[in-house]
């Protein structure tokens, strides 16, 4: 009995952590280059919606997945232009991207499917095959990306330059690094990765897109990134932690009863990840150091 619970909790943790890992790794690239990415939520939604629609229309989950990534990159480009070219306040512009992706999918889905709330279900035959019953290729990809990102960030010239751009853009510029181009690249990578997380949500974990289905996961991914002090391996651990709390809420929903015999009200269970995020931020941010140039637009000195 307990073995079953532990196993189901383990796999539920992996499932819940997967979209967070994608999104947080996305945020890692953007923020390491000095661009705050509070738009992760919107970028995830772009990926989730596009992947669901293209899968539904083409009956090919791989097309859907790739289309989701392209949508994420395109939206990230809009965000990058606002933040890098026009030097917009990154937090404000990021929220605009998030708002856009609340409205736009609903409008499009209203035209295609006559429903602004959600898309139809994707048929089981049109979904990507699973590795085992409870483990998907999406999760494997997310976990595999962690060492890959670590390698890129710390062992390649690209990673070194990216980090330099986020820490001291003027020095990087003086050393011949194109700060602006690096930031564009980093934000686009972050759009692709966040969109992958969204695509996993709509076509992997569930089988349809519903309005605002990310439900704050973009922000939780950001909290995980802060908790992990902007480093890839701790990002994995932080996402697993948040994934575990989500898995726990799903698992205990039916299991633990109050003394009165009733279940714990669903509202309280829903709150757990949000409360934990606040506590974690309060407890860890003091010891956490952001990339030095984070949030500051770069102006070349002439």
């Amino acid at each position, binding site marked *: 009995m307990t073995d079953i619970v532990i196993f189901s909790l383990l796999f539920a943790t992996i499932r819940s952590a997967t979209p967070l890992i994608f999104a947080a790794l996305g945020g890692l690239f953007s923020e390491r280059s000095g661009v*705050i990415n509070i738009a992760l939520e919107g970028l995830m939604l772009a990926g989730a919606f596009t992947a669901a629609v293209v899968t539904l229309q083409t009956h090919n989950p791989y097309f859907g997945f790739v289309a989701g990534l392209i949508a994420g990159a395109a939206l990230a480009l809009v965000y990058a232009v606002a933040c890098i070219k026009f030097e917009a306040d990154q*937090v404000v*512009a990021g929220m605009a991207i998030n708002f856009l992706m609340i409205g736009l999918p609903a409008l499009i889905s209203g035209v295609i499917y006559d429903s602004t709330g959600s898309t139809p279900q994707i048929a089981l035959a049109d979904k990507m095959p699973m590795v085992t019953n409870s483990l998907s290729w999406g999760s494997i990809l997310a976990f595999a990306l962690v060492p890959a990102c670590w390698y890129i960030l710390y062992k390649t010239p690209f990673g070194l330059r990216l980090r330099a751009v986020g820490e001291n853009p003027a020095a990087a510029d003086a050393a011949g690094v194109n700060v602006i181009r690096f930031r564009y690249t980093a934000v686009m990578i972050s759009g692709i990765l966040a969109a992958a997380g969204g695509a996993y949500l709509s076509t992997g974990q569930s089988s349809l897109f519903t309005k605002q289905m990310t439900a704050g996961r973009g922000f939780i991914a950001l909290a995980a990134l802060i908790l992990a002090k902007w480093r890839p391996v701790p990002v994995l651990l932080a996402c697993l932690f948040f994934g575990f709390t989500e898995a726990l809420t799903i698992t205990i929903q039916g299991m633990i009863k109050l003394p009165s015999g009733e279940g714990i009200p669903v*509202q309280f269970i829903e709150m757990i990840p949000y409360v934990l995020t606040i506590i974690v931020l309060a407890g860890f941010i003091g010891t956490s150091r*952001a990339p030095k140039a984070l949030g*500051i637009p770069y102006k070349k000195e002439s």
Partner: protein
Amino acid sequence: MNIIREIFWPLVAVLAAFLVGGVIILLLGDNPITAYSLLLSNSFGSLRDIGWTLHYATPLIFTGLAVAVAFRCGLLNIGAEGQLYVAAFAAAWVGIKFGGAMVEIAGKKEDWSWMSLPAFLLVPLCMIAAIAAGGLWGAIPGYLKARFGSHEVINTIMLNFIGIALVGYFTQYFYKVPGDPIQRTAEIGEAAQIPRLNEFLTFIPYDVPLNIAFLLALLMCVLVWAFLWKTKWGYELRAVGENPSAAEYGGISAKKQVIVAMTISGMLAGMIGIGEVQGTRHHFEVGFSADWGFLGIAVALLGRNHPLGVLIAAIFFGVLSRGEIFVDAFTRYVSKDLGWVLQAVIILFVASFQTYTRRKGGATKI
């Protein structure tokens, strides 16, 4: 200040939003000109339309001011939505518990209240409850920022989820009339209710729910202006927003101002509870806000974080809220979700081009 420079970019942002919106309407398969004329004619066409437009603008004046005060201190309050939910529930709770609220359950009357206060006590008590609850929900992220340095954007978003779930829980389990299919509380006592404007301004049509909360909103525009530009606290708050380290150097406690700004911000958002619960609905309902808390960000940015600008921008969004009901109903594909898109474009434009509104002390770190 040059007035043309003040209003140029906001106007460009609005025009750009309508242009982008028009293209989207066209792509969706509707006629943008029809949609936009529906939008405008139904929000300005008659006295009734104007009354409704102002009614829709009222909560946006409160949230716009709320976001603007926080912005002036260099903070982005995305938590107005949670703050107004908690506040509206608090107003309803006081209105039920102290308003002699009677509930009919299966034909039998039941008294849910503790006491029945007269209107001259209960009306202000409900107002104070709303303002205090909103202020508290704003003060939490303010305190967390001041004490631990955790970012207000993430914390306010988390507190939105928590606050909305919390009041939803209390509504569902304790204050809903059994058998009511809608997730709402029982009616507040009559003594807690505030009058509609058409009760004494007879030229306003009978069906316009515009109530004295609108006058309160106008008063708040004046008070916020006076606070920010005519008091020492307001000066200190703005100083922290302009340049926190310079303010600290000048002997101003940035931490204190962060808490003050977030508390005031929450209180202003909380005032929506007054108009909506005491004035319009006479109960608290889950999902009653038309995303006013988030719209407040666009209102504040478009209004240049100035009370007068906020008032104008709120009325502009009031037009959209009033008009989009008709656009939704009389076009084939355009739904209310277009509002999110217009908002997003406006915010993006204002954020991108209004360079001189940006904080000088460096951006916030996340």
